């Protein structure tokens, strides 16, 4: 019973990815499948023989996997957090963006948490974390925070999806059972809308502190030790800022790709890119501020152990990583983002790709140089990743993109009902809200009399 609701038909373009599947989709899945296969082969080799097949050693016992963990968990801050903030601040331009942002969070959290499993020497003993869990260890804090975040953001993704699932159930011929079950009997009554809106608002408030806690405790894995370069009080906020920074960049990249492939030019306009680009610029400056404070404190204090790592990054073996990080995270974004009047999409995309790579380098740059320079006179560690780490990284990225692509294939990546709501309710609401900001017109107070009293 394909009901043709004229208000929904207007957004027919949004159903296109679900209704039609072109050769591009299969090609993408094939390419991603190859990356995942490479990753699976890498992990199988490692599972079979041990972590010795990687480039890890004494003293650099953490490398790509922990970098990927911090990086992917950082990317997860894109979605839910940005979406929650935009919803709570009633930013009307959020409507086409929130869903694609929230999906990033949910998908990438699986990949991020999975990195820890890959990093374990004994993945078969993972459940020891529950059986003998020791809450004094920051790793347990991570486990708690990340599972809370995964749960909350899954709900936060699911709730606004319900009305769209009902639309799919009524409109689409295929997979009706799936959509019917997931839509949970949504009919769009006023009561249902009221409950849904309240639930979304509650989750939006709830999810913000959880998101902040996630990358704070991720940073605690490093800052709770007494290692030079790690033992820093600003690591919590520094990591959160970096996470939001890389997260926004990830959203912009995802938006640009989806816009290009599915021709959502009418929905994702240059203005959306410009606003997110401005947000990215703010985060660039904030990230630079934290980085500057962190390194200046180390340099000025001039403690020998800190300085060993400081120089290793500035002029020593890690200079290419360090300076590439600064160029990609500061120079490129600022150059691209200060003027966004023209070519907003191209510029924000260039800046975002730079930031995503730059933030990955930042994570590597925090982990490896510190471990490479032990306090005692050991020889300096020389960490070179092998094909296993590269494969695992490619496979993880591939799996993340595949999960995202499959989501786009099954569910509307732009919230249909929220776009509709924007047209029908949002416009009026904004006008009314704007009116409340302005001086009241109903009660014209004689200004002259008041002025007299005051003087």
């Amino acid at each position, binding site marked *: 019973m394909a009901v043709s609701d004229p208000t929904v038909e207007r957004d027919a373009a949004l159903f296109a990815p679900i209704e039609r599947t072109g050769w591009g989709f299969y090609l993408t899945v094939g390419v991603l499948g190859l990356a995942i296969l490479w990753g699976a082969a890498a992990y199988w080799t490692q599972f079979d023989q041990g972590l010795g097949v990687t480039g890890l050693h004494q003293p650099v*016992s953490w490398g790509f996997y922990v970098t990927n963990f911090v990086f992917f968990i950082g990317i997860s801050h894109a979605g839910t957090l940005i979406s929650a903030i935009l919803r709570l601040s009633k930013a009307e331009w959020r409507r086409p963006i929130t869903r694609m942002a929230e999906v990033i969070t949910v998908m990438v959290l699986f990949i991020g948490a999975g990195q820890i499993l890959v990093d374990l*020497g004994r993945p078969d003993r993972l459940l020891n974390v529950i059986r003998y869990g020791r809450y004094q260890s920051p790793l347990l804090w991570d486990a708690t925070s990340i599972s809370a975040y995964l749960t909350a953001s899954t709900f936060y993704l699911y709730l606004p999806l319900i009305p769209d699932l009902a639309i799919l159930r009524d409109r689409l011929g295929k997979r009706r059972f799936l959509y019917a079950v997931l839509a949970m009997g949504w009919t769009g009554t006023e009561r249902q809308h009221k409950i849904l809106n309240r639930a979304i608002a509650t989750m939006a408030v709830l999810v913000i502190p959880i998101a902040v806690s996630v990358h704070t405790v991720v940073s605690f894995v490093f800052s709770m*030790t007494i290692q030079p370069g790690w033992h820093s009080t600003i690591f919590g906020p520094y990591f959160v800022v970096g996470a939001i920074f890389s997260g926004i960049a990830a959203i912009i990249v995802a938006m640009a790709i989806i816009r290009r492939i599915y021709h959502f030019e009418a929905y994702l306009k240059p203005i959306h890119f410009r606003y997110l680009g401005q947000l990215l610029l703010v985060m660039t400056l904030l990230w630079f501020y934290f980085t500057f404070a962190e390194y200046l404190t180390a340099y000025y204090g001039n403690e020998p152990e800190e300085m060993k790592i400081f120089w290793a990054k500035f002029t020593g073996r890690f200079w290419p990583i360090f300076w590439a990080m600064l160029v990609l995270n500061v120079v490129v974004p600022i150059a691209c983002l200060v003027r966004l009047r023209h070519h907003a999409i191209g510029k924000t995309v260039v800046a975002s790709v730079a930031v995503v790579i730059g933030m990955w380098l930042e994570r590597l740059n925090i982990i490896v140089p510190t471990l490479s320079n032990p306090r005692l006179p050991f020889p300096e560690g020389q960490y070179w990743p092998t094909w296993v780490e590269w494969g695992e990284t490619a496979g993880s990225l591939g799996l993340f993109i595949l999960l995202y692509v499959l989501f786009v294939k099954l569910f509307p990546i732009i919230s249909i009902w929220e776009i509709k709501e924007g047209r029908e309710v949002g416009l009026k609401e904004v006008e009314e809200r704007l009116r409340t900001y302005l001086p009241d017109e109903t009660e014209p107070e004689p200004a002259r009399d008041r002025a007299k009293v005051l003087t």
Partner: protein
Amino acid sequence: MALWGMVIDLDRCTGCQACVMACKAENNVPAVGAKEANRGRTISWMHVLVEESEERTRFLPRPCLQCDDPPCTRVCPVYATYRNPEGIVAQIYARCIGCRFCMAACPYNAKYFNWLRYQQAAPGQNPDVSVRPKGVVEKCTFCHHRLQRARDRARGEGRELAPGDYVTACAETCPTRAIVFGDLSDSGSEVARLAKSPRAFRLNAELGTKPKVIYLSETEAHGRV
């Protein structure tokens, strides 16, 4: 209760590596092979650090320092490493999940990882020490199995554990007697007396880890305290 500790006299150390070899034989520490050693994966619970300068070469034997406030046990997510009541920092190989957080946290790099399966149980190994599987962290335990054995023997003979009953392999083997082992809480013991020497210092004492391996600094007198 005893508080096991060690004093290492740097004046007496000749860097002969006898302690290193004794430790490897005693604790079934695997020889990882040349290829793995080149990759920086040598396992050496007792490691002689060498510092070379123009005037002279200095040696610093470094077992696990058995901190009283160990940074490694603090971060373990599964109680696989802990400080036992007698002050020895233990590692439960059967529980360790191999996250290597303790390795990242140890400021002395005293923890080692089994990157591959380096050995299997075989004749000729010390039957008192378990052979570690791949994927777990291992470390110096002050030859803890020797303490258990000494206790059993003392109990069998119906007496208390006497000083000298329990000594680590490295201390036992050191030809210059640079390594002295014993009970730090027994004020009459040699190790407790040496620990109070004006030459005594602790590695990176400023970190607050309170190591129970105490070093005696070099002097012009060369070992004559």
